[in-house]
């Protein structure tokens, strides 16, 4: 019932929006459109095993394969160091497309092995993620050790900071990707920080972050019962009007020169997360599935 009345129409809307975004990037590649696609890809890559996400994921993988074959991804990779993370992610996803051929990765492999790309100064967490995705494509990239540090510290200690912005959510999305790729070098993943951010999103009415954090906590970082119920209730109250996406995060600032976030991508990725969260089995949230109509 929940899927039919709320999730399915919401997902159909997201598919239509995502199709437009993909076409826009193909017809007139731009920095903004690329980062918007990247923001959506970061959520979709974490939805393995959720049947409702398959249509969107297939669209993304097929588009990635086309961009890899056409040379768009390598152009972007050469153009700016800040594109490297999303290029690595899309290159990895391209492998799942029916049209993919292993020779499509050759140019990116040569660029990487020639040390022409992905060696500029990149924040450490992103370095590891790029290495993990490239490794999944058969491209060897080693970015060195982590000193005395481990990733759990880098992430969980962020809870001590007096402020947060979109970059904090990005950190959690990257961390979840590393966990999924099993490249976490033995660490168990943070607990404190994701849950603290989830509570903060509920308290501040950040309806954009809430479904993304709920998805991350339910699938990667742990989701204690009391938080599940509260998160679900908050999401239920933030369901957008039919035909609308969730609003952008309040403020929408980012404390990093290495990524760009625009409203379109963030609204789309969060609405996808909301639709999928609502479609997940009821036991995930531990509440009864009786929701208002959405169509």
């Amino acid at each position, binding site marked *: 019932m929940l899927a039919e009345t709320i999730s399915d129409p919401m997902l159909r809307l997201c598919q239509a929006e995502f199709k437009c975004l993909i076409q826009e990037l193909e017809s007139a590649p731009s920095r903004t459109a690329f980062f918007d696609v990247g923001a959506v890809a970061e959520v979709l890559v974490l939805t393995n095993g959720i049947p409702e996400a398959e249509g969107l994921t297939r669209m993304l993988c097929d588009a990635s394969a086309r961009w890899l074959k056409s040379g768009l991804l390598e152009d972007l990779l050469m153009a700016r*160091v800040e594109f490297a993370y999303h290029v690595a992610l899309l290159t990895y996803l391209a492998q799942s497309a029916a049209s993919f051929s292993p020779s499509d990765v050759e140019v990116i492999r040569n660029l990487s092995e*020639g*040390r*022409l*790309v992905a*060696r*500029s*100064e*990149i*924040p*450490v*967490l*992103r*370095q590891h993620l790029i290495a993990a995705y490239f490794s999944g494509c058969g491209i060897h990239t080693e*970015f*060195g*050790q982590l*000193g*005395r*540090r481990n990733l759990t*510290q*880098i*992430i*969980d*200690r*962020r*809870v*001590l*900071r*007096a*402020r947060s912005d979109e970059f904090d959510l990005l*950190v959690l999305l990257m961390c979840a990707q590393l966990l999924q790729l099993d490249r976490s070098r033995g660490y168990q993943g943070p607990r404190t920080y994701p849950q603290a951010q989830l509570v903060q999103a509920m308290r501040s009415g950040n309806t954009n972050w809430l479904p993304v954090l709920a998805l991350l906590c339910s699938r990667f970082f742990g989701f204690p019962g009391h938080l599940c119920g509260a998160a679900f209730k908050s999401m239920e109250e933030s369901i957008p009007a039919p035909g609308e996406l969730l609003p952008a995060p309040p403020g929408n600032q980012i*404390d990093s020169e290495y990524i760009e976030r625009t409203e379109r991508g963030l609204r789309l990725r969060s609405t996808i997360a909301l639709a999928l969260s609502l479609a997940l089995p009821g036991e995930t949230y531990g509440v009864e599935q009786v929701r208002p109509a959405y169509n």
Partner: protein
Amino acid sequence: MFKKRVKHVSGLTLDWLWKHAEEFGVSLQPEAGNALLWQVKHIVELMTMLTTLANHDIRGGIISKLTERALTHGAEFDWHQLAAYDASAATVVAIVADFFACNQLPPPFEVEFVSFLHAIGFFEGMDRVPFREMDLAYSLSLMISPEFRKDLPVWFESTTFGQRQHITRYTTDDIYSVTHAVFYLTNFGRSPLTDLLDKETADRLRKELVALAVVVLRADNIDVLGELLLSWLFCDVENTLLNRMLFHQAFERLLSATTPEGQVVPTMKLLQRAQSGQASFAEVYHTTLVCCMVFAVAAKRMPYAG
């Protein structure tokens, strides 16, 4: 002749810095917010220069006056507020503590508070680029334990240079990564590179510095060229005929970017405005600090005097 010019221009830059000493002070706005770190940037960079000069035994009347002024400014600011607000403040408080120590004074903040922030992992809660991780390790080596110096070569492996990026692909930020890495690895010219790096890596780094200086010489960025020459001096790049010629060419570029009043412009495009007194303090102070260090250290050591 060359020595005389270097000493003369070194004096000019110091004169300009003294003339603008008040502009280095902290100016707190009511809504400090995340701008707090930027408000102390000027004074902390001045302290870095003064500490470096003192550690190279470079002294003088204006340096003493600047030091007194910086100590006064430093004692007036609440560094605890900054340290607790921003994880990247570890660098700032370390520089301040080092500057005060170099003047035989205790830090103008509670060291225990900074130790507490370190103990709870506050400074580590940030996804930094590798050379900023080196920055943190260097800061912790000054404030917490010299043991943190051992992390420097480990993080260095993850930097652009450590990753052996192709020379044609260096961005300006990548070049700053190399220069800052040299500052930390050599303890601002007080330790040989081979203390922390193997001979092969140290030799490769020296060669890369020369190549990057040539690349930047063909561009218009005096600020990064100044940092490269400073790194060149700190690393004891081999004194060959070719290197001497390149060093002199680069040095001439710095001299040509210096106005008669002693300010050094970051790009030649700004020179005309600076010469007519229209360049702002914010536009020129950093390059002037960097080049003041280059001129002063070169005047003292004169390794490539022709």
